[in-house]
């Protein structure tokens, strides 16, 4: 992000960057940078809080008044993060092995039950917001769990989406599944709490169990890409954990 700013600035465009890692802004030296002590994923700070969002924008645009640079300022308000982590992380001890998976058909049926139960509230959330982020995979919601279950059974199925191989598609399906749950719950219960949403989805739902089962299969997979996506925390949220996923070396990092 800070690097891109240099290219735009050199093209005669004035730039201002906001960023979450102050050390990186200091090192890369974009023309104008505003450090935000917020969780990643929340650049304007707070969803559905126009005044707070405008405070961030105004603080950033204030830097455009500087006559020389580079300029780096800190936004004065902090949105605390937990234990230095910038997002939810699975507890290190919450790891499944392939022996824990059990009957995949029953697990898929349980997930479908959860999906069905959430559906009226999901529809209400979409209607209220006028949008949904679910659907990057382009699979139907009813197909999420069956598609994921094929990988848990050790298959690498043919991708149903032209131009997108099965494993990159799997990642999008996993993210769509989580988005379906969290979009529904944040609206239904009026919750904006990333730690609570992560804990609920990953630790308490059957969908979370399905994905931990997928992780268990992936970490012993002979498919290098399947192995890589769990070793690099690209599927399950372990990036902010205190150690690598057991059975992996985190060598990808």
């Amino acid at each position, binding site marked *: *992000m800070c*690097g*891109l*700013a240099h*290219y*735009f600035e050199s*093209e005669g*465009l*004035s*730039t*201002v*960057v906001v960023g979450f*890692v102050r050390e*990186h802004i200091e*090192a*890369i030296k974009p*023309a104008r940078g505003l450090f935000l*002590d917020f*969780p*990643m*994923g*929340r*650049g*304007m*700070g*707070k*969803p*559905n809080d*126009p005044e707070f*969002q405008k405070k961030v*924008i105004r603080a950033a*645009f204030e830097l*455009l*008044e500087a*006559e020389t640079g580079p300029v780096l300022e800190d936004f004065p308000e902090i949105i605390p993060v937990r234990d*230095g*982590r*910038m997002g939810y*992380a699975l507890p290190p001890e919450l790891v499944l092995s392939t022996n824990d998976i059990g009957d995949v058909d029953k697990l898929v049926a349980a997930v479908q039950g959860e999906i069905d139960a959430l559906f009226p509230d999901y529809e209400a959330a979409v209607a209220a*917001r006028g*949008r949904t*982020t679910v*659907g*990057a995979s382009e699979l139907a919601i009813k197909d999420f769990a069956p598609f994921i279950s094929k990988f848990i059974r050790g298959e690498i199925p043919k991708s149903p989406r032209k*131009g*997108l191989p099965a494993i*990159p598609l799997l990642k*999008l399906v996993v*993210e769509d599944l989580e988005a379906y749950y*969290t*979009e529904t719950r*944040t*609206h239904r219960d009026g919750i904006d709490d990333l730690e609570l949403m992560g804990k609920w989805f990953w630790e308490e739902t059957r969908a979370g169990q399905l994905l931990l089962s997928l992780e268990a299969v992936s970490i012993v997979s002979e498919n290098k890409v399947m192995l890589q996506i769990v070793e690099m*925390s690209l599927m399950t*949220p372990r*990036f*902010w*954990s*205190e150690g690598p996923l057991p059975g992996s070396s*985190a060598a990808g990092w």
Partner: protein
Amino acid sequence: MTKISEMPAVGRGFISNLELPTFDNLAWTTSVPANQRRISIVSTAAVSRRGDKPFSWLAKDHRTFHKDDRDLVMTHVAVEFDRSAWQQDLNVIIPLDRLDEMETDGEIGSVADMHYSFMGAADPVTMEKSAREVAGQMKQEGVNTVFLIPI
């Protein structure tokens, strides 16, 4: 303040070991007055219009969306950042409504028609060609100010 040294082990290791780009010449373009600013957003959230080609994991290219587009999806490779916020409100990562309001109130000149998205996980040096293409498109529509927002 969240410092790299205070982050948990896996993230700290990754972030502290990133090879950061360096620039010999620090470019500087003096800003026009606030009421003359035409502003385009550049996001590294790897968002795109529904139906667009998903970003590849280390994509060098970009996607374009109109200021009225709200039906965006995300195909960012990383999952370490919170996605529940943008699910609730697009403005928390791409504040198009806020910029619209600021235009109406005269705080800025205008909001550009087109805005841009990149894959933040990729090395920015590999994106230079694409970034310069974007700069050309911006200048064609009279943009003079770029607001860069990570995910």
